[in-house]
């Protein structure tokens, strides 16, 4: 017989037949509802803080941060951590925990209503909403740090990123 000795083929053909002949809701894909977006976004902030902290550690460990260019890149990473933490808190307060509700009174006025923590929490929320006060300095330090590295390279100085400083052993 032609099909003798081919059990795998028989099983697969049977399964295909059942799928086509007997359709049924199978829940093959997981639905991604409303809270997932904010969770992913918050996780991205945590991941970002983690990666910047690691970068600061490496710059310190490689003794690169003693040089002006790399030192300013370290400052940039530090400000980015502060910014990401602030943004994380703002999202947490108004979108996840719901401790703060914001409503626009008119174009130029807002009402911040804390359900917990009182006015202090409202002020904290207001301050963390001014997050550009942290991320702009971060990018400014990045720009300045790279500028210094570049001018150091132009002046023929030892490039900071060269591995000469570290003993490969």
């Amino acid at each position, binding site marked *: 017989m032609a099909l003798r000795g081919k059990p795998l083929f028989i099983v697969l053909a049977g399964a295909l037949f059942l799928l086509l002949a007997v359709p049924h809701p199978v829940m093959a894909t997981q639905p991604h509802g409303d809270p997932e977006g904010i969770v992913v976004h918050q996780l991205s902030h945590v991941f970002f803080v983690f990666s910047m902290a690691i970068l600061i550690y490496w710059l310190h460990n490689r003794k690169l941060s003693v040089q002006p260019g790399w030192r300013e890149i370290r400052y940039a990473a530090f400000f980015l951590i502060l910014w990401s933490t602030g943004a994380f808190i703002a999202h947490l307060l108004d979108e996840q925990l719901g401790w703060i509700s914001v409503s626009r009174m008119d174009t*130029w006025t807002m009402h911040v209503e804390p359900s917990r923590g009182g006015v202090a929490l409202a002020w904290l929320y207001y301050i963390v909403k001014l997050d550009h006060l942290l991320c702009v300095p971060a990018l400014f330090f990045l*720009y300045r740090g790279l*500028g210094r590295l570049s001018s150091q390279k132009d002046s023929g100085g030892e490039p900071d990123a060269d591995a000469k400083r570290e003993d490969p052993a």
Partner: protein
Amino acid sequence: MTITWIPIITVDVLGAILMIIFSVLAIRYAWRLNRRDPDNLVWTFLLWVCVCLAGFAISRSAGHILKQMLFVAGHGAVWAHIRPVSGSLNTLLLIIVAAVTLFFNGAWHIYQEIFSERKMLQETQSELMELNRTLENRVQERTEALLKHEKQMAQTDRLASIGQLSSGIAHEINNPLGVIQGYTQLLLRGEKPDSQKQQDLQVILKHARNCKAIVEDLLHFARRSAPEKSEINIHEVIDDVLVFIRHRAKTEKIHIETRYDEKVIPMYMDEKKIKQVLVNLVMNARHAVGDNGSITISTGYDDQERQVMVSVADDGYGIDVKDLDRIFDPFFTTKPTGEGTGLGLAVSYGIIKNHGGEIRVSSEPGKGSVFTLILPVNTAGNS
């Protein structure tokens, strides 16, 4: 708590614009660094970080500016449709920036490995080049030494042939000369003093004696006369020669310097013949320097080879390259006719060879010459 939006809106809009500006400027610097040193992976890493960060800054800032504009314009509801896309894009770019940043350590390690391997390769290459250079120098030195040796051998063979020929001729001429000299002396006995015939016979005798001297020199060159060796101090021999030369030649304006090596030990040699060689060399040097100049006679002792070196150096006009091969040939001279027989160096060569030594010359036209005698140290027992 009711509060104004103005600070938030102002910081949001201005901050968003500044973020875009600084992130683009940062890309510019990172790109410049990467272009200057494209092999450096760390600069490439920084460029990637800056590009991703700029992407995030632009996406986020554009969203913030648009949001504020829509609210100020009273179209806040539109933002509700844009917000999910803008937020998702921001999230995605934030994750990419974070992920790329985590490559720093990897980039650093990779570059470090590349750097150390490149350094090792460069060191090996320079070592190889140095070895190659040394090898080339050695080959050149050996080739030059070989050529010099071959030249010396050829000269030795040539001088030996000339010596053999000279010896044969001298031997054949010596006997008739003796007969001429003897008969001339016999004839002189019977002649009256100051007679014409007596004067003629004196001329014959004088020239016969000159011929005899030349023949004797030829025999010295051909090493037919055995040296009469005795223990000598070479420094005393040189001093004697210099006293003799100062008496015979005008040396007032010539600076003669001696540099003796105190390690030189007494030798077993024919003092008379060594003096003859030294007189020849010093007289040649004196002739080469002219009225003004300096002659340096120095000695040295090689304990391992058991050899004594005696150098006669002058700062005279030197010897032309074309003449260097012929200076030990009998009757070869660069002096004007009548001033030299051309036998001095030939005889010196013969004498030194007869002592088991060597005579070497180095000369540079216009700068001077150095004649070096290399004499084996013989003692009474092994001479």
